[in-house]
């Protein structure tokens, strides 16, 4: 059993915002995102009326969240890392021509013990804001580390 207090990692990172880049958004990116995921709603791909007005699908910011580099938390636990889960809160529309700025922070590190042994979760929250300073999306990603031996 590992309590949250016993988990060894760089605690100085908890809650500290790190800038992780700016991301220009183009119409082509948005349409490619929709096409590759089979999204056909007119709000995201246009309605064929000649109007160019589209907004990004609600999980669009994930493509940027997936590509960012985060600080190493120096977690001393486990020998397998897995992507455990993700949540997204779309807060405002993203449109072609927007430039998004992202910051990320280590939100939580905690342990859980189940049938396959103890797992340690690290949760990162990434906030995306547009050029007007509006938060357009919050993305939380949860990564788990566990011991291979406990799985066997």
């Amino acid at each position, binding site marked *: 059993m590992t309590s949250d207090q016993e988990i060894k990692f760089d605690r100085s990172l908890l809650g500290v915002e790190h800038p992780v880049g700016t991301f220009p958004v183009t119409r082509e990116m948005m349409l490619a995102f929709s096409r*590759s*995921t089979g999204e056909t709603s007119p709000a995201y791909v246009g309605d064929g009326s000649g109007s160019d007005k589209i907004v990004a*699908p609600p999980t669009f910011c994930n493509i940027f969240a997936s590509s960012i580099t985060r600080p190493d938390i120096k977690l001393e636990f486990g020998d397998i890392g897995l992507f455990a889960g993700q949540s997204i809160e779309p807060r405002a529309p993203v449109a072609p021509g927007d430039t998004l700025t992202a910051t990320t922070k280590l939100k939580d590190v905690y342990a859980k013990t189940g049938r396959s042994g103890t797992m340690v979760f690290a949760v990162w929250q990434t906030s995306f804001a547009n050029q007007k300073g509006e938060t357009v999306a919050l993305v939380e990603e949860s990564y788990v580390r566990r011991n291979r031996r406990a799985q066997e």
Partner: protein
Amino acid sequence: MPNSPLYFEDVEMGDEVGPIERSVTTGQVREFVQVWGARSEPSRFTDPDAAKAEGLPGAIVPGAMSMALMSQIITGWSPSMVLRKLDIVFRQTVPHNAPLKLQGIVTDKGVVDGRPQLECDVFMEDAEGTRLVIGKATVTVPARG
């Protein structure tokens, strides 16, 4: 998607949403990772050999792409539905070129901070009915009048 909007009063707890049938092709995954700007291709997402080297049975659909598919349970439901939060757990990897069923069920409805809101359980199943991805969606929807 229904042509006319759905309203809060039209939805009841226990209502099913979908299903949507999908199969994600390798070509779609390649286009997706290009949008994403993945820096290390070929990868487990696009190359079966790279996936097998990591102990996977074959190339897999990226989590961000599964998330986008899951959101379509809501975006494809009605144009009046607004997805406020989608919380997903990846239970198993999602393979390429395999039939997938995406579905939801309304588990709660109420007014939160003055806004009519629905809670839905959402999931993605393979052809055997195994739930590969599960989650919860929070949705706002207009009320009549």
